[in-house]
């Protein structure tokens, strides 16, 4: 009977063995397919990134330009950040960096962060909650804080914060006057790094002490900004890159040529024009082009306090006269979208849909709208016998000048004689702040795709960046209401209303939302352009496949 038993065992063994083998085979196939689909990141290599000019300073909190965010984000961390690997920024894509977890309490009036332990600054000092309190007390210019940032463009973001508590080294609590769900979005923006409490803010204009994946190695003004890996970074195994070099090339044509010749690996956000990307793709077909939105809009500043723009009919006429689609074709070569004051769909969740846009100035039949504009002007007392003469001011930069040129031509077609005034960079914002203009051709970038980041800065009565000096108490009230609304559906409805009102009032006629045609060499992996230029430059996940 032993032989029978042996026989049975061997039969069993064979049978199950075959099954096991099959399972093993399938498993091997699946995992190897998985490997082929998502290759294992290689460690090493230096990324050469394009930069168009010297950043005005290295301090992110003191600047409002991608020229500072792009090179300096690798050096810092936020409390929370938009997931670098997800293109659409929203409350669902917020991940923790220095904060491990967070929680709204107190009916939405307190935001409690639990911070990571064991994090160190680049100079070896330990990170704790006092750094967070210091940073945001500094930015919101808390009473009792004597140190000031030299320039503070985003103070308004934190206007609802009453107090910041740091009860333990790993707990931070933001206490608000009233609920503001947007606060988390603002903190996740690339504009909200945490600064070290033990380094004077003024020093951070010229050097960088952060907790981020890269340490600043060298800054040669006019030439390059160089970073090396932070070996003590709190995320083990990151970053993959040995270093990053931001190479500064001022000449546009030369920059494009450098990318084509392989001296640069990636473009700079906001520099990816459609024409350049087409040219590059034709020359080097293997280049990768990713289309993303800037979250920057081209707009017209109408000086509400200066005649004839005190007359709403004239304001309306100006907005009606400009054919938005024509603008996008001429000035942006088709690389932009029509929209209201929030980033349009599908790039942004708050934007107006096609139906919602219909009926707003600029979105209808251009000829009809121009006729309507002419009639409004006639009602206001201007016509062929008494033409309206105005000055359109703009910055002395090619893109701005093109924008103004197109606008002037459109206005000419409804009988307004406009001349162009080119203002040098140094004089532009002082001029705007003093209200010394009639119409201005302008670009506005938003640090986070949230109505609070937009409306409070640009449309609220008396805001320092509300250059048009638009002031509508009703709209201000609506802005406050939406800021406190916790239900997202209800909030969106309010925001749509506000956008319609702003376009009808010609508060700041939006000409278009430009698109970035981001070009990179195919061996650059995990650099995912977001629908906003300001928040994806951490470079923590990026690796080079070569």
């Amino acid at each position, binding site marked *: 009977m032993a032989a029978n038993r042996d026989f049975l065992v061997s039969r069993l063994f064979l049978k199950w063995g075959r099954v096991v083998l099959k399972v093993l085979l399938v498993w091997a196939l699946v995992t190897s397919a998985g490997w082929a689909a998502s290759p294992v990141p290689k460690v090493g290599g230096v990324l050469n990134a394009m930069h168009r000019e010297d950043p005005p300073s290295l301090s992110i909190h003191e600047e409002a330009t991608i020229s500072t965010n792009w090179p300096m984000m690798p050096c810092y961390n936020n409390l929370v950040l938009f997931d670098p690997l997800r293109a659409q920024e929203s409350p669902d894509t917020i991940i923790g960096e220095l904060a491990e977890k967070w929680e709204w309490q107190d009916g939405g009036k307190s935001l409690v962060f639990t911070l990571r332990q064991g994090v160190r600054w680049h100079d070896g000092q330990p990170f704790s909650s006092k750094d967070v309190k210091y940073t945001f007390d500094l930015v919101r210019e808390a009473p009792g804080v004597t140190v000031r940032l030299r320039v503070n463009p985003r103070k308004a973001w934190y206007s609802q914060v009453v107090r910041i508590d740091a009860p333990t080294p790993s707990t931070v609590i933001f206490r608000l006057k009233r609920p503001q769900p947007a606060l988390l979005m603002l903190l996740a923006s690339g504009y909200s790094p945490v600064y070290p409490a033990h380094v004077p803010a003024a020093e951070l204009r010229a050097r960088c002490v952060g907790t981020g994946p890269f340490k600043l190695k060298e800054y040669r003004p006019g030439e390059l900004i160089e970073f090396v890996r932070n070996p003590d970074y709190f995320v083990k195994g990151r970053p993959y890159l040995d270093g990053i070099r931001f190479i500064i090339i001022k000449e546009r044509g030369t920059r*494009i040529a450098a990318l084509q010749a392989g001296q640069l690996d990636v473009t700079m956000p906001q520099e990816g024009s459609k024409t350049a990307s087409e040219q590059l793709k034709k020359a080097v077909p293997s280049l990768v082009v990713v289309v993303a939105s800037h979250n920057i809009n081209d707009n017209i500043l109408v000086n509400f306090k200066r005649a004839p723009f005190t007359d709403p009919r004239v304001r309306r006429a100006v907005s009606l006269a400009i*054919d938005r689609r024509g603008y996008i074709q*001429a000035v942006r070569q088709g690389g932009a979208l029509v929209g209201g004051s929030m980033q349009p769909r599908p790039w942004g969740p708050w934007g107006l849909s096609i139906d919602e846009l219909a009926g707003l100035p600029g979105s209808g039949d251009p000829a009809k709208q121009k006729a309507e504009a002419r009639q409004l002007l006639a009602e206001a007392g201007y016509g062929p016998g008494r033409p309206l003469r105005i000055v359109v001011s703009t910055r002395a*930069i090619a*893109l701005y000048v093109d924008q103004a040129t197109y606008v002037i*031509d459109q206005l000419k077609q409804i009988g307004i004689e406009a001349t162009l005034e080119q203002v040098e960079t140094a004089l532009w914002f002082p001029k705007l702040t003093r209200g010394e203009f009639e119409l201005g051709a302008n670009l506005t970038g938003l640090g986070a795709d949230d109505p609070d980041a937009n409306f409070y800065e640009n449309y609220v009565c008396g805001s320092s960046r509300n250059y048009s000096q638009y002031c509508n108490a009703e709209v201000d009230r609506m802005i406050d209401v939406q800021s406190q609304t916790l239900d997202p559906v209800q909030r969106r409805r309010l925001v749509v209303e506000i956008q319609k009102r702003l376009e009808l009032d010609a508060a700041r006629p939006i000409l278009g939302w430009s698109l970035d045609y981001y070009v990179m060499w195919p061996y650059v992996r995990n650099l995912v352009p977001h629908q906003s230029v300001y928040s994806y430059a951490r470079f923590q996940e990026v690796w080079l496949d070569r």
Partner: protein
Amino acid sequence: MSADLRRFAQHNPLGAIGGVIMLLTLVAAVAANAVSTHDPTRTDAAHTFLPPGSSHWLGTDHLGRDIYSRIVHGARISLAVGITCSGLGGVVGGLLGLLTGYGGRRAELIMLPVLDVMQAFPLLVLALVMTAALGPSLVTVIVAISVPLIPRVARVVRAMTLSIRETSYVEAALAMGANSARIVLRHILPNTMAPLIVLATAQLGSAILVEAALSFLGLGVPEPYPSWGRMLSVSAAEFAVRAPWVVIFPGLAISLVVFASNLLGDGLRDFLDPRLRI
């Protein structure tokens, strides 16, 4: 006068060609509206980057504007700047040169260091600082380019004045009791006209080139004046590969006009005094 012209054309064909081109450019500039086919500032979103063809002789740019018409109107600006600057430089420089050459020790002591200082600045650098100081406008650009030209003219005129002052003609006139003003007007001025004309024609080319460089750097004649230099500036570099005509024709226009003014200057120099070395 016409006999002189004929002689000039005969002996200096290249110079004559240069003169003809300059004349044609002048005519185009003056009659710009008649000569152009479209409104140079009219944008046309539907027809951007059209290659040269029957409707747009030299094609259209990134805003759909007709390049031929922009070049014709640009001739106005470039020539206006060029002629005004070299004219101003010539007149002011000539006067200063006469003064310094004839005025004696005291005039020299005051004027020479001033002229030296103005001349020590490279043309473009001084123009840059002045444009930055005065803000970009047509007037600023003209002033900024004329000022560096003045000392260069003054030097030459001074040298000529000095040498003429020593000649026997002037000695004789002085002996006959002529006063300074008469001497300057009668003897010195006519003899400095020839090198002055040659110099002015040469400076015309320089003025146009400097204006182009200023526009390239963003500090030149602002919109809406269509300036050749600005048509070549930063944004043009971006479109150069896709639509080369946007960059080629303005560059050719500048080169051609400057080339012609140099040819004319050479021809005039050979014609008026072949031994002149400027």
